[in-house]
């Protein structure tokens, strides 16, 4: 696993994430949010889970980002009244990061290099989805249908 690629993708993802969290204009933040997910998908490719990377680009960048952009357009606000940025949130996030970092660095035997792995093919994922994970698959299907119907009901205009 190449370390140059790792560092480039890491810098790109974290920079896009920071931009998404702190940019004052909402549309710029939404577009940087899409970039962050492209970076995370690149991480998945680096780690050898190509199918998950493709699903990530498809679902997040192709669907969730478009949803967020549509919602931003449908809820226009005049003159950006609140560009407020509460600094208490930043302190809490820093404290949490410090705690997680301490936990990671304290755990022994995490510094090993990556073992050689055969790539997980789509056929294996499909077979496992149909045998071991068939119940979660059906439940996710029901959940997605319920979410679809629920979102539609929430947004439908009331008939007068």
């Amino acid at each position, binding site marked *: 696993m190449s370390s140059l690629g790792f560092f480039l993708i890491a810098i790109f993802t974290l920079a896009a994430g920071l931009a998404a969290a702190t940019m004052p204009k909402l549309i710029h933040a939404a577009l940087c949010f899409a970039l962050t997910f492209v970076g995370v998908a690149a991480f998945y490719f680096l780690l050898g889970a190509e199918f998950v990377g493709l*699903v990530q680009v498809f679902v997040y960048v*192709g669907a969730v980002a478009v949803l967020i952009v549509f919602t931003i357009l449908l809820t226009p606000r005049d003159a950006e009244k609140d560009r407020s940025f509460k600094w208490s949130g930043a302190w809490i996030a820093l404290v949490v990061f410090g705690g997680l970092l301490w936990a990671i660095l304290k755990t022994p035997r995490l510094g090993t290099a990556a073992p050689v792995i055969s790539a997980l093919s*789509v056929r294996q994922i499909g077979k496992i989805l149909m045998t071991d994970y068939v119940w979660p698959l059906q439940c996710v299907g029901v959940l997605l249908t319920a979410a679809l119907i629920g979102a539609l009901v929430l947004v439908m205009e009331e008939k007068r």
Partner: protein
Amino acid sequence: MLSGLAGVPVWVGQIASSLINIIALLVVFLSLFALVSVLERKILARIQNRLGPNRVGPFGLLQPVADGIKMLIKEDIVPARADKVVHFLAPILIAATAILALGIIPYGRNMTPFTIDGGILFFFAIGSTTELSVFMAGWGSNNKFSILGAMRAIAQMVSYELPLLITVLPIVMVVGSLTPDAIVAAQGNYSLGILPHWFVFTPWGAVAFILFFVSGLVESNRTPFDVPEGESEIVAGHMTEYSGFKYAIFFMGEYLGMFAVSGLAVTLFLGGWHAPVRILEVVPSYVWFFLKLSVLIFVFIWVRGTLPRTRVDQVMNFAWKFMLPMAFACILAAAVWHYAGHHLIGWLYSLVVVVVVYLMLSRFIGTGKKFAPRTYRFAE
């Protein structure tokens, strides 16, 4: 072919072969784009009973050169209150995603530029980022018509992404793999030496091919579904504020998207690079691929010259009320065909499934609009 570089480390060889792939792909498809842009104007002109461009070069075939020079020397106007970065990046992203999508299509025997295990999923993942770029183009122009055009375009593209995907599902199910190479290889047999086993010759395959083709028409914003760029309605939709070279890049992105969808249709339904008859296998495989691709592009242009534009609500109705249930019926029919063996009984059953669903849909899904009998008034 790269054995001359045998002494260098592996990654140099990989980069060199990738570069050769990329350059070949770009050269072939950019020249095809230039050719198709002038051929489209000539074919449209012949349909409309006039000649097309015929002044530049023999039969007007050097017209793209003139167009390119014109686009390059035009002034690049950016609206003063536009969002500079977003306005600049939008055409680049549209063209980039179209070119990326061209990379996984098998053009001939052993001629796939990049083999990815989930090739079809890669194509659709890249295609779904096109919507975001269209929105960036519309919003970055700071123009009400642009935003309106972009919203219509995104609504249309998102609605038709579902039939596009679901019509590909029967093929993936029958072949058992997401790799375009495996899908092409599964269509390689011939019955009795003359009937190829292309998926378009099965009942579910024919219906799925028509649905995929129509969805491809919509995804590339071509007539009759070119509401987003309807010139008589909203100027040029999300491309209104672009001039000069950026407009040319939009144009190129649209055409390359058309090529990508046609290429995928050839791969999935029309047997890829296989010849129609076993005897003709001596002709190189990429010739067959480009022949089939040209037929599909000609049908794109033919439909553009023939049909009028649809209304936005008609487009949405069509997608959600007709194409989606029909696509699900295709999956059912493909499953029936696959499990009855690939024999005649399977054909009959799947044909029955498809025809029954089509008749039900066309009878019972009405749009509720009744039209009065047509009356004529003549000028006195």
